[in-house]
C-alpha cells in the first residue's frame, strides 16, 4: 500500500508562509465550525474524493495532490505550546524556527536518504521465548563435533556478521558447536526459496551457490520463476542470517551449482535459546552477586535488575592490573570468573584474594577516594564493571540508597579500595 510514489519534488509543508493566506487561516481557525485546514484549500477534499473513487490510496502520495496544490499541502496551526509570555525562537507566527534554513524542497538535500522507503513498515516478531517457561534448565544446546580447522573456518565465516560479533567466547563456542552439517548432494538444489518462511542460517563449508531474486518477492512458477541471478556464494560465505532473528520471508533463492557441496546450518530457536540462556544465567549470576554487596543490600529487586542490565563484562589476562592503588575510584567490580589479588604499596604479599562472586571497589560508588589497594589478575579473569556515574544515573546517589534501609554498617575489608 501507499508505496513511494511520493514525488521527491513535491512542495514541502508550507509553514512560515508569508503570503496573505496566513491571515485567512487565522480567521478560519477562530471560526469554531472550521477546525479543518483552510476552506480555500481543497487539498483534502481532492485527496478524499480521489481516494474514495479510486482503487487504492496511493494517490495520497501521488503527485497530483501536491502538484496541484502549490502552496497548499498540510498546514499546521501555530505552535501548540505558544506561550504569550515566552519569547523563544518558536514563538513566531509560524513554525519557521530557523528562517535562515530553507525548507527542503525535495528529498535529495538535507541528508534525506536516496530511495528511502516511504511505505508502511511491517512489524516483525520471533516466537515468544522465555527462559523459565521454556524449561531451559533441562534444555541442552545441540553439540555437533567439529575439527579445529572447521571451527576456525566457521569463526572466520561469521566474524563480520552482526549477529555473532557481539557474542562472548562462551556463547560463540556454543553456537559454533550447535551448527549442524548439511550435505547438498547435487547441483540445482534450492536450499532456500525466496518468499518462503525462514528458519535456518547457513554457512558454506564447500561448494558454490547462486543467488536469484525475483522482483515479485517470491518464487514464481515457470522457467524464469526464480528471477535473475544476483550473485553467488562460495566457501566461507553465509546466507539467511535474518532467519536467526525472526521468521522473515526469504529475500532470495539460493541454488547449489556444484555436484556436491556442504553447508553448516543453524536454526533460529537454537540460536536464540543459546543467547537467551546464557544472558539469563549471567543475569541471575549478577543479581546474586549484587545481593551479596553490603553497600547495596537495600536495593529493590528491580533496581538490582537495572544494575545487572548495565554491567559491562570486561576480560583481563593474568597479571594485568584491574585497579591501581592511589587512582581515583570511579567504578565497582564483580568478579565473574578467575581470581584476583589485592596488593598494597610496600607489602610483598597479596593482602587479600578474591574469587568468583566476590566484589571489589564498591566504595568508589560513594566517592572518588583514591583506591586503597591495587587489584591484579592472578588468572585470566572476567569482571563485570559499573561506573559510579552510571550507577548514580540509574539509581540516584548511593548515600540515599544506604539511608533508606536499615543499613547496618559498612565494613570495608582491608583491601577494599
Amino acid at each position, binding site marked *: 500500500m501507499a508505496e513511494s510514489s511520493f514525488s521527491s519534488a513535491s512542495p514541502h509543508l508550507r509553514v512560515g508562509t508569508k503570503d496573505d493566506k496566513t491571515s485567512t487561516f487565522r480567521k478560519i481557525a477562530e471560526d469554531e465550525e472550521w477546525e479543518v485546514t483552510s476552506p480555500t484549500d481543497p487539498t483534502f477534499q481532492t485527496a478524499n474524493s480521489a481516494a474514495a473513487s479510486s482503487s487504492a490510496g496511493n494517490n495520497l502520495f501521488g503527485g497530483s495532490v501536491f502538484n496541484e496544490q502549490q502552496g497548499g499541502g498540510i498546514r499546521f496551526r501555530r505552535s501548540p505550546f505558544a506561550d504569550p509570555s515566552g519569547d523563544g525562537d518558536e514563538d513566531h507566527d509560524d513554525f519557521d524556527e530557523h528562517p535562515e534554513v530553507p525548507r527542503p524542497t525535495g528529498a535529495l538535500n538535507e541528508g534525506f536518504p536516496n530511495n528511502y522507503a516511504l511505505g508502511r*513498515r511491517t512489524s516483525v516478531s520471533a516466537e515468544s521465548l522465555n527462559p523459565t517457561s521454556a524449561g531451559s534448565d533441562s534444555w541442552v544446546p545441540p553439540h555437533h563435533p567439529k575439527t579445529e580447522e572447521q571451527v576456525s573456518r566457521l569463526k572466520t565465516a561469521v566474524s563480520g556478521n552482526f549477529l555473532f560479533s557481539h557474542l562472548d567466547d562462551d556463547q560463540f563456542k556454543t553456537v559454533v558447536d550447535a551448527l549442524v552439517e548439511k550435505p547438498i548432494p547435487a547441483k540445482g538444489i534450492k536450499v532456500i526459496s525466496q518468499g518462503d518462511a525462514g528458519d535456518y542460517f547457513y554457512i558454506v563449508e564447500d561448494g558454490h551457490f547462486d543467488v536469484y531474486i525475483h522482483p515479485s518477492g517470491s518464487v514464481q512458477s515457470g522457467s524464469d520463476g526464480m528471477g535473475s541471478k544476483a550473485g553467488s556464494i562460495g566457501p566461507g560465505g553465509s546466507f539467511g542470517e535474518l532467519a536467526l532473528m525472526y521468521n522473515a520471508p526469504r529475500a532470495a533463492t539460493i541454488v547449489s551449482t556444484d555436484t556436491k557441496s556442504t553447508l553448516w546450518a543453524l536454526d533460529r530457536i537454537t540460536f536464540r535459546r543459546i543467547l537467551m540462556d546464557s544472558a539469563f544465567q549471567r543475569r541471575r549470576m549478577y543479581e546474586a552477586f549484587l545481593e551479596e554487596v553490603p553497600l547495596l543490600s537495600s536495593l529493590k529487586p528491580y533496581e538490582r535488575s537495572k544494575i545487572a542490565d548495565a554491567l559491562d563484562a570486561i576480560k583481563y589476562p593474568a597479571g594485568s592490573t584491574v585497579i591501581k592503588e592511589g587512582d581515583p575510584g570511579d567504578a565497582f567490580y564483580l568478579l565473574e570468573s578467575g581470581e584476583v589479588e589485592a596488593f598494597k604499596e610496600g607489602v610483598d604479599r597479596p593482602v587479600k584474594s578474591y574469587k568468583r562472586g566476590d566484589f571489589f571497589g564498591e566504595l568508589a560508588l560513594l566517592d572518588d577516594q583514591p583506591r586503597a589497594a591495587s587489584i591484579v589478575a592472578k588468572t585470566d579473569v572476567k569482571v563485570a564493571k559499573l561506573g559510579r556515574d552510571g550507577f548514580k544515573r540509574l539509581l540516584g546517589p548511593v548515600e540515599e540508597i544506604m539511608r533508606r534501609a536499615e543499613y547496618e554498617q559498612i565494613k570495608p575489608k582491608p583491601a577494599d579500595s
Partner: protein
Amino acid sequence: MPSLGGLLKKRRTKDSQTLSKELEAGSSPTAAQTQTSPNQHHHSHQSHPTPTATSPDAAYTSAQPHQSSHDHHNHSSGTNRSHPEGQPSSMQSAVTQSPSAHNHHGHTHSNSHNVASIQNIIHSSQQSGQSVGGGSHQSQTRTTKGKYSLEDFSLQRTLGTGSFGRVHLVQSKHNHRFYAIKVLKKAQVVKMKQIEHTNDERRMLNRVRHPFLITLWGTWQDSRNLYMVMDFVEGGELFSLLRKSQRFPNPVAKFYAAEVTLALEYLHNHQIIYRDLKPENLLLDRHGHLKITDFGFAKEVPDITWTLCGTPDYLAPEVVSSKGYNKSVDWWSLGILIFEMLCGFTPFWDSGSPVKIYENILRGRVKYPPYLHPDAVDLLSQLITADLTKRLGNLHGGPEDVKNHPWFAEVTWDRLARKDIDAPYVPPIRGGQGDASQYDRYPEEQEAYGQGGEDIHGHLFPDF
C-alpha cells in the same frame, strides 16, 4: 509571538460544552441509541485504588464473569478498578462511555437525572476521542470477553491490513455509531507463532485506560477469526500525515512526542512495555490528538523479556543483540520516532536491507541533520543511546527526565494530559459519520466472516 490566549479559550469553551455532552452519550456498540448513560460527576472525585500489578485480568473476570453481570454487580466491581493509577478522572478518555452489552447497563443509576436531559440533546453525537470534560466510566470494559457478535455490526471498508488480519470500519446496528474492528485469522496467528502476543494484546488493552491509548470495547471469536471492537479514530494514521508533510516542524513533532511520552509513562507505570512505537501505530482523533493503537506486542514486563519483536527501523540495540531487555526499548523507539517526525526518515535506515539497519543500530552512529534544533539533538542523543545508564526514561528520574528535558520546555504536561492544548493539525473529517477519508484504501477481504466449521484453535485464545 502574539498571544493565543483568546483563541484557546474560545475553543476550549466550546470543547467543554460539546464534549461533555458527547461524553455523556453512551456509546456501547450494542447499546440502543437512547440508552441511559453513565455520568461522570459522581465518580470523578473518587479516588480509585491501584489495581494490583499482577494478573488484574483474573480479578476482572472473577468479578465479572460474563456479560450478564450488570447493574449493581457491575458497578460495584468496577468502581474499584478503573483509574488504575488514581488519576483524576478528567484524565480518562472520553471515548470511554460504557460499551455494555446491554441497553440497561451498569451505570445508569449513578445519576440519571442528569443523563436524561442530556440524552435528548446528544443522541446522535458520536463519541469522540476527546476527554476535555473528563469522561469517567467505570467498569464497562472490564467485561469485554465474548461481548459482541458479527450481527451487532455492519461491516464497512478496510482501514488497514496486517500479517494476520485487518481492521474494518464498522457501524453498530444498535446505536449507529462507528467503531473499528480488528479481525485476526486464528490459523494465521498460530502459523506466525503469535498466540502469546495476541492474548497479551487483548489482556493489555483490557487493562489500559488513557486519553492517548485506543479503547477496546469488547471481543469475540468464531471458528476462524478473533474480533476486537475498538474506537474508530477518525483522523487516520500519523504516518499518513507525516508522509504528506515529509517532516514536521519542531513544535508539531514536539506536540505528538509529548502525547506519546505521557502514554508511555502511563503504560510503564503499569509495567507494560509497548514495543512497537512508529507513526503507523499512532492515530489522530478528530481533534488531532494522538491515540496509540495496535497492542500486538504490548506485554506486562516487570523485569526483563527476551522476544525479538518490533519494527526493524525502531528496534533498540539491546533487542537486536538478544540480551534481554525492558522498558528502556520504548524510550529508544521514542527517540527514533521524534527523529523521524523531525527529519522524515529514520536514523538507521539503509538501502532497504534489514541486515544493514541492524548493523547500523549496533554501530549506533546517528547523523543529525543540521536543521534540527540543538535541544532536539540533545534529547535524541540521550534517547538513541545504547548505554542504558544514559538513556533518558530509563534512569533514576524515570519518564520525568524526558518530560523535563529542555526540548519539552514549553509543554505544560498537566494541560496536555487533559487535552487542554490544541493539536497543531485537525484532520479534515466529518465527525461522527464514519468518515474514513483519512485512511488509505486496501483491497477488501474476500473471505466472509462468521462462517461455521470446526474451531480447532479456539482453545488457544481463552480471553476472546
